């Protein structure tokens, strides 16, 4: 067995590692389930072949041209659907994989079934690349570059934001961050790397054929990512080499013919995919990422009970005895929303006044949470107007509403499960240079400095809600009450002027519930405007300065909670329904 035999497989391993890293960027970090690897590689690969045959450009311009063409085509075809549910992305990328192979095999100018063969051997720095060993420096260089790009993106604040987006897109947008542009960017970077890998595959093999880029190849790249470990750059490299090297190992150990080993390989990895997802979903090298450290002085502060609120700038207090005199911050006029035949919100009028806690009460199904969804842009209303500080925000997106200073919490928490409490809270920070791809590569020092400052501030927020900032567990491993604290700290860390709290006490009781009420009271003391949806009348009585009673999607009464509950009809409507 000559060294060239092994060099050949090493070269294939290096090329497929680039493809696996590219796929991992979108599946692992961005949560975009694309099945288009082979299609994007084919675009790059066939471009290389056509340029090689017809233009005979040097290697570098050829690869660059292939990357540009592959990226532009892939992004143009995928960008319109990246904001939709994952099933659509799977479908459109699957379609691309099938079609690109079909087009290649039925187009004469692309060589049809035979493909484009007889490409001239590429040259690098004056040296003609003829045997596998000649390709090694080039392929290693490209893999190092791809790994660096993926590692920098993945381990940066940008990567943190993408992982949060993967966990919960709306959760990120409700903190004032755009997600779609970043998804398209990551998708574009991934397509560029995949196109480069496709170009190298064609250059290395000296031909471009439909079978080189069939849908089965995409499935094998998926196997590399899952076996190595989703969201793990080293995992992608290991996974690629395992998949590629099974073939020669079968030939050497079981004396299989090359045809047999090539035929058996996808069967083995198909079964391996099923077993790994079932029994070791994290893969061989599980996802690990850098968790920002905080100063020791901060972490030694007492925890497990609400701390002092020193991080939120205080505003002049409002006299709750005269709530109707406080300035209106949020005004809702004639808001309406219908889902099919169900009227969820029906001509709702409501005002939130500065520095006060306003409660929305009513039986289940009265439309309280839908109101939050409508005024924060999560759902578009059918009719009505929402004004924030006098500006019309009715048609704004959740991130635009949050950036204007109105932030909500969710009844179902929506913490980012794969991130630590600290990372969850850090995502609320604004204007982070490291959350843009350009900032990651062009302003690394500024990004690191900002991240340190943000970590320290986030530590204070965690202490305020009674959590240990040095907590290293991921949010998914924390108790429900702790997750609730993380979610609350994250909302407060936006430093918004209006907070909408959706059932802050649901699922917690006793001391945890009492602590949560104390936290809300302390936030009110800073002069923030708060609107709270809550079923506990005791909690509403303790917190609210003003209350709206909702029935059938509209407000049927307003006043102090004591006045409302003194009305026998409202009392019956509320308690009758909840009991």
């Amino acid at each position, binding site marked *: 067995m000559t060294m060239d035999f092994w060099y050949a497989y090493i070269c294939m391993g290096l090329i497929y590692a680039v493809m696996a890293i590219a796929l991992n960027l979108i*599946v692992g970090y961005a*949560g975009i*389930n694309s*099945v288009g690897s082979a299609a994007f590689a084919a675009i790059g690969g066939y471009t290389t072949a056509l340029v090689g045959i017809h233009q005979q450009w040097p290697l570098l311009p050829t690869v660059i041209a292939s990357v540009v063409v592959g990226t532009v085509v892939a992004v143009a*075809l995928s960008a*319109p*659907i*990246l*904001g*939709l549910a*994952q*099933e*659509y992305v*799977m*479908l*459109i990328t*699957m*379609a*691309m994989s*099938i*079609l690109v192979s*079909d*087009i290649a095999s*039925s187009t004469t100018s692309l060589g049809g079934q035979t493909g484009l063969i007889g490409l001239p051997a590429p040259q690098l720095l004056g040296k003609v690349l003829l045997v596998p060993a000649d390709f090694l420096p080039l392929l290693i260089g490209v893999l190092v570059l791809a790994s660096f790009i993926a590692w920098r993106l993945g381990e940066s604040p940008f990567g943190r934001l993408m992982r949060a987006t993967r966990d919960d897109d709306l959760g990120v947008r409700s903190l004032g961050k755009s997600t*779609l542009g970043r998804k398209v960017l990551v998708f574009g970077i991934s397509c560029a790397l995949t196109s480069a890998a496709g170009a190298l595959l064609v250059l290395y093999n000296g031909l471009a054929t439909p079978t080189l880029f*069939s*849908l*089965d190849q995409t*499935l*094998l790249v*998926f*196997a590399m990512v*899952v076996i190595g470990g989703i969201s793990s750059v080293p995992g992608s490299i290991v996974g690629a080499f395992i998949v590629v090297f099974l073939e020669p190992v079968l030939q050497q150990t079981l004396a299989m013919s090359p045809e047999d080993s090539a*035929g*058996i*390989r*996808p*069967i083995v*990895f*198909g*079964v*391996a*995919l*099923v077993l790994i*997802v*079932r029994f070791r*979903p994290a893969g061989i090298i599980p996802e690990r990422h850098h968790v920002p450290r905080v100063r020791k002085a901060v972490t030694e502060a007492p925890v497990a009970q609400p701390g002092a609120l020193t991080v939120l700038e205080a505003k002049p207090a409002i006299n709750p005895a005269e709530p109707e005199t406080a300035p209106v911050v949020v005004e809702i006029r004639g808001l*309406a929303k*219908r889902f099919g035949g169900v*009227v969820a919100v*029906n*001509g709702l009028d409501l005002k939130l006044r500065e520095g006060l806690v306003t409660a929305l009460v009513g039986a289940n199904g009265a439309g309280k949470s839908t109101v939050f969804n409508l005024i924060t842009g999560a759902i*578009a209303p*059918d*009719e009505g107007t929402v004004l924030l500080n006098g500006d019309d925000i009715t*048609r704004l*997106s959740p991130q635009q509403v949050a950036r204007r200073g109105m932030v909500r919490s969710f009844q179902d928490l929506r913490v980012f499960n794969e991130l630590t409490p600290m990372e969850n809270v850090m995502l609320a920070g604004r204007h982070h240079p490291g959350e843009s791809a350009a900032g990651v590569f062009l302003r690394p020092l500024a990004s690191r400095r900002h991240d340190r400052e943000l970590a320290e501030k986030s530590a204070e927020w965690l202490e305020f809600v009674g959590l240990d900032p040095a907590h290293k567990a991921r949010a998914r491993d924390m108790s429900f009450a702790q997750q609730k604290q993380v979610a609350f700290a994250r909302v407060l860390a936006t430093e918004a002027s209006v907070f909408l709290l959706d059932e802050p006490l649901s699922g917690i009781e006793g001391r945890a519930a009492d602590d949560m009420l104390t936290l809300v009271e302390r936030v009110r003391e800073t002069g923030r405007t708060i609107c709270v949806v809550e079923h506990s009348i005791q909690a509403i009585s303790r917190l609210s300065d003003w209350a709206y009673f909702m029935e*059938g*999607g509209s407000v049927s009464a307003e006043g102090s909670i004591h006045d409302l509950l003194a009305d026998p009809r409202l009392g019956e409507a509320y308690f009758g329904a909840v009991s």
Partner: protein
Amino acid sequence: MDLNLTAQLVISGITQGATFAVLGLGTSLILNVANRFHFAYAATITGSAFAAAVLQRDTGLPAVVCLVIAIAAAAVFGALTEVVVYRPLATRSGANATLPIFVSSLGVTLAVEAALQYYFTRESPTVPFNLVGDSVIALPFGLHTTRLDVITLTVCGAIAAGAVVLLRYSRVGRIVRAVRENPMMASAVGVRPQRVNVSILFWASACAGLIGCLTAAKYSAAAGMGYGSLFSAFVVAFVSGQRAPGLRVVLVGVAVGLVQSLSVLFIPANLTDLVVFGILFVYLSVKGLSAYGIRLPARHPVRLTAGRA
């Protein structure tokens, strides 16, 4: 335009559309009721085609017997995939099960397609399946069809009609719709969603098996043949909509078949999938506009009546 050719393409399109309708109904139920992105549907189609063709080649059994065995095998394969592969992942991952189930489905597809290719296409890339021969039936105005196409249209039409009626008017249909709307609430009133999911995978896979065999009878069994059918089935299911009634799915299936068939008038026959892709791309792009903050005007302006809740 050659009217005779156009009419001939309409006949082919309706036949093709009937198969898309059946596959689309199965895919729609699997996607929207069982909540599985069942990529392995492609492997079911290819597997049943090979099962029928290889059985006939190696055992000499009558074609109908091979067909029935292949359909039964496809149905069992679908149900087993649900019970052994998908259900444990759905139980463990809950709302985050999309990716694990999808990846598992890719794994099943990769293994089955590769195994079929490895074991059955060594001597020849395709294995023919002779179901009813290739006898041609003459129609008025110089048109024609084949006996196989008539059988395909009749069987698929009957299945589609039966499924539409069953889903719309029977107790089974109510159970399926209940699980689609809210599995937890359905289980509270005695429905067992897990059993419904297995049944859906069983019957949808049986239909896929039938289509696989009919396709093999027309073109021979070949590795990867299920991908194209799967793609068309997904397009029908997605374009029909998440809560589409069965009749709409069937109509969309027939429409896609017709458009694909008639596109031969304008583009090469082997690129007709491009037309389906075009339909899908335009549909999804329009749908995706809202993600960029571009909202299309509502087709039916909403008027709310006070007090109507």
